[in-house]
């Protein structure tokens, strides 16, 4: 298989991780988009076989280590969501941007839902409904990020 531009994928994921652990002011702490998830989703949609569930799982573990959450929490959610995306890749790819946005909304809700269940089972439920805010933020971010990453992919000819 002819594959190019692996470094673009690595850099984009690195930026996503940095954005995830970037300290934010107190009022914005709940509004952080699910950077790593959304960028992984993009690469799975764009390049079917390069980025898959394995990469997603490793990124999830990395988030768990950085965030101090239970080991496997983000990895579990990430693996399930990315599996769904990979399964539906053909359909999502040809969908219009608005429908994709709606789908990202549902996918991030599933992602946070799985983490919510993990938190619930380990008695650490968040007390605030703001927990679900990233679902909206991530969905709103999708069209812009999609265009940005598509241009990146074309310019650096990532295949």
């Amino acid at each position, binding site marked *: 298989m002819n594959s190019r531009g692996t470094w673009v994928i690595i850099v984009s994921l690195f930026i996503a991780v940095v954005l995830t*652990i970037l300290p934010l002011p107190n009022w914005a702490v709940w509004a952080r988009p699910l950077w790593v998830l959304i960028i992984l989703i993009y690469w799975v949609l764009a390049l079917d076989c390069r980025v898959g569930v394995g990469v997603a799982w490793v990124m999830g573990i990395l988030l768990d280590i950085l965030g101090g959450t239970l080991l*496997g*929490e983000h990895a579990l959610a990430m*693996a399930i969501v990315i599996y769904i995306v990979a399964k539906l890749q053909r359909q999502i790819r040809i969908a219009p941007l608005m429908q994709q946005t709606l789908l990202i909304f549902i996918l991030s809700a599933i992602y946070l839902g799985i983490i919510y269940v993990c938190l619930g089972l380990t008695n650490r439920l968040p007390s605030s409904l703001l927990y679900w805010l990233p679902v909206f933020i991530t969905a709103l971010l999708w069209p812009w990020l999609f265009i940005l990453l598509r241009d990146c992919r074309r310019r650096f000819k990532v295949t």
Partner: protein
Amino acid sequence: MRGLQTLLLILLAIALLVFDYRTTYFVKIRLILATIVTPLQYVVSAPFDLVDWMSTSLTTQKQLLAENTRLRVQKMLLDAQLQKSFELERENNQLRALLESAKVQTANTKVLVAQVLAVDSDPFVQEVIIDQGSATGIYVGQPVLDATGIMGQVVSTVPTVSRIMLLSDTRSAIPIELVRNGLRGIVVGRGEYGQLALVHIPEAADVKVGDQLVSSGLGQRYPVGYPVGVVTHTKHYSGQPFMEIAVQPSAALDRSRLVLLIWPQQEKLMQLVQQELTETTKASKPFKDMHSNE
């Protein structure tokens, strides 16, 4: 093929979750992994440190002079207070001697200043990472303060950095007493900065808004007599055995950039407590079961 891979990864993640939650087996592995990703945290906090550094190095002379004057006044005030506290400490020791109670030194503790390196981005994990680790003698369970009160305790440490669980974390609990009447209680975190709760206080207890809470040292983890918080809100529910009490933490949990680590000399105290407990067990046979897990 992909389905099988996913299934395996999901099972692996669940296994990790269960092991991590149920056992302490992973603590060491986590620490090693945390050390590997530490450079990333340095990279992320670098721009903030740069801005900090610039704002300190680019201040004008006028500002410096003003700040200098302010600090000088503050130092004088603090010195005055310190003198008073020396006097009080001396008097306290005298009184203890008079009472012939155990001489427990609460002063003379070793202190280290550390800088907050990173704050956890996960809003419901109330932890910060500091730039001092086990290489400087930091241990798990060590109390951490800032200039105005208790911040939390060390939950994990590697040679270069340590992780501190703040009082506002939902896993955190600290034994306290009311300054006004000595009522004992436990303050737990609610998972939000600036919000703690005093729990299991009976309806009839005397707790008012504005009451100061200090650590009671009863858990033998936090030192005695440091400010923990102020009662901001009390609520009674008819038919409920306990009050709902909101507490505002004294320490600036979400703002402090410098923290103090202290080494309370509590070994002696712990020995005394153990001794006392065993004596009680011997003396009161009927209550033996109560202390059997000591």
